[in-house]
Structures are given as C-alpha cells and as structure tokens.
C-alpha cells in the first residue's frame, strides 16, 4: 500500500513511500504511518522524520487521525506479534506522542481461536473535536460484538461499544468507520451498517400491550432461578433482560420456555436489579423487573 501526492488538484500524482495512512492537521502538518515506524513531515511531505520508534511499543500503524489542531491518535497493532494493539496519542499537534497500549483491554486477546494475529486498530474517525470512533480488528477480541470503540475526550480514553451479534459485524483490515456527526455514522465490513444514536443504545418510552398484566414472577427476589409466567399463550415469545443502564445482558442468564413460562437461571449475572421485556412478533407484550 502506498501514498500518492498531488500539487495540481489531482491531475498528476507521485508516489511518496509505502505508507499506510496520512493524517493532516492545520493543512500543512502531515503525518504518515507505515509498518515498522511512524513519521511526520513539516515541509509538505518533501522530507520525513521518524518520531516514534520505541521498539518495545507497537510497530504496526494502520491509521492516524486528528481531532483538532492539537489532539491526534494513531491506531496500531501487534505487527509481527512482538508488540500490542492500541493507540498512540498526541496533545500538542504531533510534536510528542505517547502510547495508550497499557490501557485495560488492549493487548489482551490479540489472537483468534486459530492463532491468527489481529491487525489492532484499523480505522479512526473523529465526529467532533472530542467525539471519535475507532474500529478494532475483530480478532483482537474474543467476542465478535466488540469491534468498535468510542472516545469522548479527543482520543485520550477509549471504551468498546457493543454491536448486536445478530448483525454479524466482523471488522478486519479492510473495514471502515465513518461518522458525519456525533450521532450519525456508518461501519462497513463489506456490509454497511448505520447508527443514528452515536453507536449507543437509546432508551425510550414504549407502552406494553398488556397494560393491566402484573407479571407473575416467583420467587422475586431470587437467588439462582425464577419463573416468569405469561398470562396467556403467545406465539414465539422472546425474553430480553437489561441492566438498569439499558445494556442487553440476556446472555448472562440461561432461559427456557415451557408451559407458558420462562424459567431463568443466573449464569454470570451479578446480584442486582434487572428489567426484562417479552415480545412476540416484534411487539412488546409486557415488561417487568427482577431482583
């Protein structure tokens, strides 16, 4: 993969070098990344200097983006397996950079079940000077629904956003994240997905159909298992359980439906309060809470 430069509006192009990406800040302060190093140019790409060459840190830079004239991040991967995946961040317009590889999740699961090494952070898009999104190679996580990250402070801190596993979104080195603004964005892995909520869940008021029904839950509070009995027969009822923050945590419970009742057992769910919904054919039938 190479980088081309034009000075005549795209009429002619010249090959610069084998860079994987270029970031531009203030129209003239340009950075480029490529496997094995991280460089910048202060003279309209006529010359380049190596600015990040600590061999103990990531060596596979896939993408670099600036949130504003000061803050920028580069996504990096494990390269030949010697480093870790994560970000390097600058807050002074690119003069100095520091690694975020020691933060939390980064570097924990760089290989998939077949031993393939993930590419790390493969794309970054800033929707504003503070809000940004990044795509991580799905292989760096053991869970396919963790592929996109979000920052709210110009790239200093990043957290994973959940993607519904039913969508089968799997990011790789060819995937793309693009946000028009803080709320409307797209992720592409061959397929195209759109969000209008900044990639996060929204919680809204929706009235269940069975307004007068009082859920029969026994026991509640419960220790290991409970039974939710439905007031009548419904076709293919679907149970979903949420935390008080609105996160779908159905997978932390085991549930079975028989005799017009859901029997749920706690798997990895911790003690606390949970909300549940029961839907049939896409319509919300009833809601309730579990303790």
């Amino acid at each position, binding site marked *: 993969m190479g980088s081309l430069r034009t000075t005549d*509006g*795209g009429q002619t*192009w010249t090959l610069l070098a084998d860079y994987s990406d270029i970031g531009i800040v203030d129209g003239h302060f340009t950075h480029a990344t490529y496997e094995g190093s991280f460089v910048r140019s202060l003279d309209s790409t006529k010359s380049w200097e190596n600015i990040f060459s600590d061999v103990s840190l990531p060596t596979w830079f896939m993408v670099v983006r600036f949130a504003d004239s000061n803050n920028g991040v580069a996504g990096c991967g494990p390269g030949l397996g010697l480093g870790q995946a994560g970000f390097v961040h600058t807050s002074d317009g690119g003069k100095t950079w520091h690694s975020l590889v020691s933060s939390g999740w980064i570097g924990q699961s760089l290989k998939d079940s077949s031993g393939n090494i993930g590419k790390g952070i493969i794309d970054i898009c800033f929707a504003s000077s503070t809000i940004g999104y990044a795509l991580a190679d799905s292989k760096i996580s053991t869970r396919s629904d963790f592929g996109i990250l979000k920052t709210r402070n110009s790239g200093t801190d990043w957290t994973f*956003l*959940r*993607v*519904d596993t039913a*969508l089968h*979104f799997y990011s790789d080195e*060819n995937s*793309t994240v*693009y946000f*028009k603004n803080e709320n*409307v964005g*797209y*992720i*592409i892995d*061959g*397929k*195209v*997905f*759109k*969000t209008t*909520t900044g*990639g*996060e*869940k*929204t*919680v*809204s*008021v*929706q*009235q*269940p159909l069975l*307004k007068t029904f009082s859920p029969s839950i026994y026991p509640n509070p419960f220790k290991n298992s409970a039974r939710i009995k439905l007031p009548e027969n419904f076709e293919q009822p679907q149970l*979903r359980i*949420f935390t008080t923050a*609105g*996160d*779908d945590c159905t997978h932390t419970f085991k549930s079975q439906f028989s005799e017009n009742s859901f029997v749920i057992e706690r798997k990895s769910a911790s003690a606390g309060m949970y*909300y549940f*919904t029961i839907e049939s054919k896409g319509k*919300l039938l009833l*809601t*309730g*809470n579990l303790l």
Partner: protein
Amino acid sequence: MKNTFFFLLGFAIMSYTAHAQWARLDLPSGQYQDIFFSTEKTGFLVGDSGMILKTIDDGVTWRKIEIETNAHLKSVHFPSENVGYIVGDSVFLKTADRGKRGRCKEKGNFGE
C-alpha cells in the same frame, strides 16, 4: 409517599425498553469498502466490482452510478463539495462536478 414509590416503579417497569444501535442498510448485493459524505445530504459508497452508490437524501435512498470498470474500489474522499476521488485496484477516479461526470486515470468513468 408509598403510593408515589409504586407509581414511579410501575412507570419504570412499563416504559423501559432498549433499541438496537446499528441497522444494516438494504443495498444492492456486493462487498462495500468505504463511504464519504461530501455534503450533509450527498454521500457516496464504493465497493467491489466498480460499485459506486450515491445518495442525495442523507442516506435514505441510494442509487447506483454506472462506470466502465469492474475494479475493486477501496476508498472515496471529497476534499470539497465538487471535487472527489475514488481509488481502487489499479484504478484512480476523479470527479469535479459532485460525481455527475468523472475522469479516470486508468479506465472507467466516475459519473452518472
């Protein structure tokens, strides 16, 4: 006080539901690679086999732009509202009029 508590609890129970945060777009079959909006309403999607889709209604509908190439298109970018570039395998496309007509360094046209 007790009645207020149960009213609030009941409201929380009856109204709480979470919506999925991502939705897959219903597009012509193909492997898509990149997207870029040149304005608030106008955007372009590119993908394999010379696929270029354009929207002028903020992504509600997408229309295919026919070009004379089957190259795998990997990236699209508009540095201004009128001027845009698309690059792919051995192909380099440019438009100077918002994608209405285009020229190609190798082959094909980026236009309508």
